[in-house]
């Protein structure tokens, strides 16, 4: 980290502490955080048990939080920012309910630390339809009954959005017969199932989920 950034960080921290130390957890921009001159990374070294200023960029908005380093990205989104669209299923990487997009890649927010994702572009299910009109994948889930109770659905939808992007970049999966092939890989149902296998659905809505993803794939190409 260079000297300028360190200085900026010091300022940001002081300003932040002045503004919110007694207030508690969530501080929304722009009132408490001047994004213009603020550093991308607010905390580089935090003592055990201490609260650190953590700046997260979620769905195009800046949030300045005060968190312990052990807070996961999932808990930061749900408990500190109040974006409860992202769900907690297993909290251990085994179900995909917590899937969010970080710099356009899908990850499990339950196995990520919020403090390690400062400066990243985070997108949750709430950010897929910013102006009210459903994202193509959301619309396809509605049309095809890609859910029953709906608990896994935000994770499924975020996962599918990233998956379609991955497929457009000709990435392989375990269902791809020849990994040496060049060019597009057809999104067969076997490919869709394998590529969506990081999202479990306890209701077993898989038939609808595969149909929805298939529809969304043909519509968006």
């Amino acid at each position, binding site marked *: 980290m260079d000297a300028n950034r360190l200085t900026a960080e010091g300022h940001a921290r002081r300003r932040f502490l002045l503004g919110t130390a007694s207030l508690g957890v969530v501080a929304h921009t722009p009132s408490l955080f001047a994004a213009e001159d603020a550093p991308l990374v607010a905390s580089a070294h935090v003592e*055990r048990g201490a609260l650190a200023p953590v700046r997260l960029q979620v769905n195009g908005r800046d949030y300045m939080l005060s968190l312990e380093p052990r807070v996961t990205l999932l808990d930061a989104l749900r408990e500190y920012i109040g974006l409860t669209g992202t769900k907690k299923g297993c909290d251990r990487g085994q179900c*995909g309910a917590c*899937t969010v997009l970080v710099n356009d890649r899908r*990850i499990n927010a339950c196995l*990520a*630390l919020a403090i*390690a994702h400062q400066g990243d572009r985070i997108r949750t299910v709430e950010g897929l339809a910013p102006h009210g009109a459903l994202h193509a994948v959301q619309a396809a889930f509605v049309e095809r009954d890609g859910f029953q109770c709906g608990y896994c659905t935000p994770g499924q939808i975020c996962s599918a959005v990233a998956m379609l992007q991955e497929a457009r970049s000709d990435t392989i999966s375990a269902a791809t017969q020849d*990994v*040496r092939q060049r060019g597009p890989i057809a999104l067969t149902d076997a490919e869709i199932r394998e*590529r969506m296998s990081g999202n479990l659905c306890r209701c077993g809505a898989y038939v609808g989920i595969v149909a929805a993803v298939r529809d969304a794939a043909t519509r968006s190409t």
Partner: protein
Amino acid sequence: MRAFDYVRAERIDDALTALAEGNTRCLAGGTNLLDLMKGDVEQPARLVDITHLPLAGIEPLPDGGLRIGALVPNSDLANDRRIRERYPLLAQALVSGASPQLRNMATVGGNLLQRTRCHYFVDVGFDACNKRKPGSGCTALEGPNRIHAILGASNRCIAVHPSDMCVALAALDAVVETQSRGGARRIAMHDFHRLPGTTPQRDTELRHDELVTAVTLPPSPFAEHSRYLKVRDRASYAFALVSVAAALDLDGDRVRDARIVLGGVAHKPWRARDAEHALVGHALDDATLSAAGAAATHGARPYHDNAFKVTLAQRAVVRAIREGART
């Protein structure tokens, strides 16, 4: 999760300094470390966040091989053109592991150093686990042990290494590069992971003050004929019961050179040298294949619930070789 000090490393030196001070773990993708911290299996005093270090590139080496930075995500590695074309075995192994989300997070270094999924190791409700608490015993010896080792285990520990990537790296003669304040080391993949012996608490040869910086791959004669076959309880998003990396260098139908490495059967990727000997110099007919299959589990010692792994491994070896030869 218990509290810990957090340090973000901006330079490799920051990480080496933090590691040298002790009781510190690197945070890479976090997919294994945070999972184990949530379960109280790992209790580091400090995490050093290495995700911003410049170790995420894949560079060509003068000998025609590749150097893969320790922070390259598993998904990017699997999809790198050079890996897909020249080391398809590695690409196949990578995409058979975990889930797309986890592969986006998981790094090469973290995958190498991921810990066993032995039920008794990951659950602190079991008192006896020599890997977690040296000297406490091994619950798996008497308890359900369907997923456990059949090769190279000891009466102290019968856990298996869970990685798919490592099995392919072992077949491709990869080398792990490390750095510490004391200097740099290169450790052959085959020597990197250890057998449990009397010190199952140590998974690898890596010291606590060392950072994995890269893995190198030599040029490979196996690009045309190789296959990673993974056998598991469900079709996806599950660890291997048995896996096989079969890599063949063929001269017509005769085997010039071969690597057969098994996953899910031992405390480390298990190189089945006897199976390789059964192949090299021979034509790939049924007799050779079944000889190689049988040889792959020489010395196997199953426990009460996992005898099926012996037969499964033999058959998986035969099928992986067959499919590898055909590609």
